[in-house]
């Protein structure tokens, strides 16, 4: 089946596809989008600009305590926030704020924090700013300020430093992913994000690669070039070459995408908060690629067949729905699986050929999948190839030299009986 002629076809397909605008655009655009989104997210979380905050309290003691604490806090260390400290009572604050109004509106001053002595009883402090709802800054201030208040409050009482530490701490909920592995892993939204990413990548790639295959077959058919090629190679060799070429293109693209994701998630450039940290295992990547490779052959056989049936892209688009369902259905199943990864439907479709190309890798990101199921998934898809490829090949062989009006499905079925 694989020979020098098929190789020549594969090489041509690769040359044509890898330098095509749509391939380059999609391949680069996606990581850019990803890097960009991660970057924006990181920016939002890390706070963009140099903040200048005035800390005001009504007693010298408080002001000094805040100054000591804030000066050694993380906020000061990264050099992005600077503080000025003032002591005044509430009546003076009003005129102070009036004086600062210009700076506040002109973005020269981010905000003014007023901590009255009463805060030592009710922990109520005030924050004056053009954007008081910017919680990222106030959240960061919260810790040190709270610490000072707690220290002063409990300082008079006889407490051990451990007791003080406990009092200072807030509640921190951490999610853990329970799996058969010995170590129970800490887990945030990471796996959910990963499942979204996998679903979209597989969906987009299948659609894109399929469309390109369809167009390419239709072009060869409608431009009559196919007859010249068939004078040198058999239809089966041509179809095989085209499928391998397209599949390799898609795999290269997918590798670039995955590499980009792995770079983003594992690099220190983007300080993503731990709860959205994505972790990808080697098993996940390897399985995704292997299963995707098999799935591509399966899907591309169908796309090639469809291209051979139709004469022009318009007819093909309207006649494509059976194949499109095979791509859209697993997409929807994968999306719904994120709500309930262990639903029986999701489990079934993670093994059914065609749908498993998308559903199984997504399932893997959400729950622990037994290894036998991974193998079964690939084996079933390969088995499906052996079933689908001869039929698709036959229809391709008959259809590729046909021109004229759009055939009915009943006619296409008849082609299977032809001796070609």
């Amino acid at each position, binding site marked *: 089946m694989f020979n*020098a*002629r098929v190789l*020549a076809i594969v090489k041509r397909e690769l040359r044509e596809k890898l330098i095509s605008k749509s391939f380059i655009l999609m391949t680069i655009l996606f990581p850019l989008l990803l890097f960009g989104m991660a970057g924006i997210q990181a920016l939002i979380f890390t706070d963009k600009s140099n903040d200048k905050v005035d800390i005001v309290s009504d007693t010298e003691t408080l002001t000094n305590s805040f100054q000591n604490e804030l000066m050694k806090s993380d906020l000061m260390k990264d050099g992005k926030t600077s503080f000025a400290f003032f002591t005044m009572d509430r009546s003076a604050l009003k005129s102070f704020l009036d004086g600062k109004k210009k700076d506040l509106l002109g973005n020269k001053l981010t905000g003014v924090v007023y901590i009255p002595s009463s805060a030592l009883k009710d922990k109520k402090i005030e924050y004056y700013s053009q954007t008081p709802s910017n919680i990222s800054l106030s959240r960061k201030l919260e810790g040190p300020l709270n610490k000072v208040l707690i220290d002063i409050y409990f300082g008079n009482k006889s407490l051990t430093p451990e007791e003080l530490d406990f009092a200072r701490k807030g509640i921190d909920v951490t999610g853990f992913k329970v799996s058969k592995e010995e170590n129970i892993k800490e887990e945030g939204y990471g796996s959910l994000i990963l499942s979204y990413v996998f679903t979209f990548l597989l969906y987009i790639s299948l659609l894109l690669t399929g469309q390109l295959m369809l167009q390419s077959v239709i*072009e060869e058919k409608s431009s*009559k070039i196919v*007859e010249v090629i068939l004078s*040198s190679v*058999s239809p089966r060799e041509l179809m095989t070459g085209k499928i391998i070429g397209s599949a390799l293109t898609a795999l290269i693209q997918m590798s670039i995408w995955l590499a980009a994701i792995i770079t983003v998630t594992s690099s220190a450039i983007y300080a993503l908060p731990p709860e959205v940290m994505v972790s990808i295992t080697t098993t996940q990547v390897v399985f995704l690629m292997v299963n995707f490779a098999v799935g591509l052959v399966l899907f591309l056989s169908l796309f090639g067949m469809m291209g051979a049936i139709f004469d022009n892209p318009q007819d093909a688009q309207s006649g494509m729905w059976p194949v499109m369902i095979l791509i859209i259905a697993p997409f929807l199943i994968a999306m719904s699986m994120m709500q309930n990864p262990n639903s029986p439907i999701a489990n079934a479709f993670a093994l059914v050929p065609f749908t498993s190309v998308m559903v199984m890798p997504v399932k893997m990101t959400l729950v622990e999948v037994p290894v036998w199921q991974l193998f079964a998934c690939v084996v079933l898809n390969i088995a499906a190839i052996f079933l689908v490829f001869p039929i698709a090949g036959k229809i391709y062989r008959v259809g590729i*030299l046909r021109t004229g009006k759009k055939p009915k499905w009943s006619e296409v079925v008849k082609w299977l009986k032809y001796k070609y």
Partner: protein
Amino acid sequence: MYALEVKDLTKRFNSLVAVDHASFEVPEGSIFGLIGRNGAGKTTTIRMMMNIYLPDEGDVVLRGVKIGQEFKNQVGYLPEERGLYKKMKVLETLLYFAELKGKSGKEVQKNAEKYLKRFDLFDRRLSKVEDLSKGNQQKMQFISTILHDPEFIILDEPFSGLDPVNTNLLKDIILEMKQRGKIIIFSTHLMDFAEKMCDHIVMIDHGKIILKGSLAGIKSKYGQRNVSLTHAGDISFLKDNPIVEKIEDFGNSTGIKVKEANQTQQLLKLLVDRGVPIKKFDANEISLHEIFIELAGREDGNGKEVRNV
């Protein structure tokens, strides 16, 4: 010894029998014409010879062996409906087609450049195919047909849609290939070309072979009772003459068929006696066109005109 034997080839498309038990032989070193009207079954026959269609019945035999990939590698094929990848470059396309035939490397590249120079396309070798004129695309297609130096050249309606310059170019290629001992098979509905170029022909009509053999043999067989006459004046008196079976006006010449082979001299005497100015009297001469009309020109036997001939 025959280079290629077509044995009992049959192809059906649903109820239509496109080729009906066709058998013929292509001798070594010849230009072989497959002639017939549009839709007679020429392209289907050729596609089966190329192994593009599998025949329902029958075989194509290459020097004693049933054809397969081996044959495909030895053939240069120019289909009736020609196509190229529009986005590919000229030289790239030629090399790709050669590679599909199992030929690659420096030698092919050199040959490709040689042909491109000869056909005035060398400057365009890095252009995209879609930027070439139709005439230049046809030239490219010729080059791709012969670049891998095939043993057989099969051309399906090669002259349709060619401008006069390219028509001559193709004729030159065909004759040159013949001189180099290649076997050329072409189909055509243009009797003129077939008559000028072919050594052997088969005539196909409604999927059936109705005539085959060497052109000279066929012409002498059909020519014995035929006279090609170029004249001035009126010859309508011949219509009622007992020795004349049929008169057909071809415009420049008139084809006259006598009832017996030995009556052609009688016919000449008749014309001279009546004082008809004779410019050319060619006994034992019949054009392929006339043979074709005689054999295939009658639909259901009531003398309907043949279109597209």
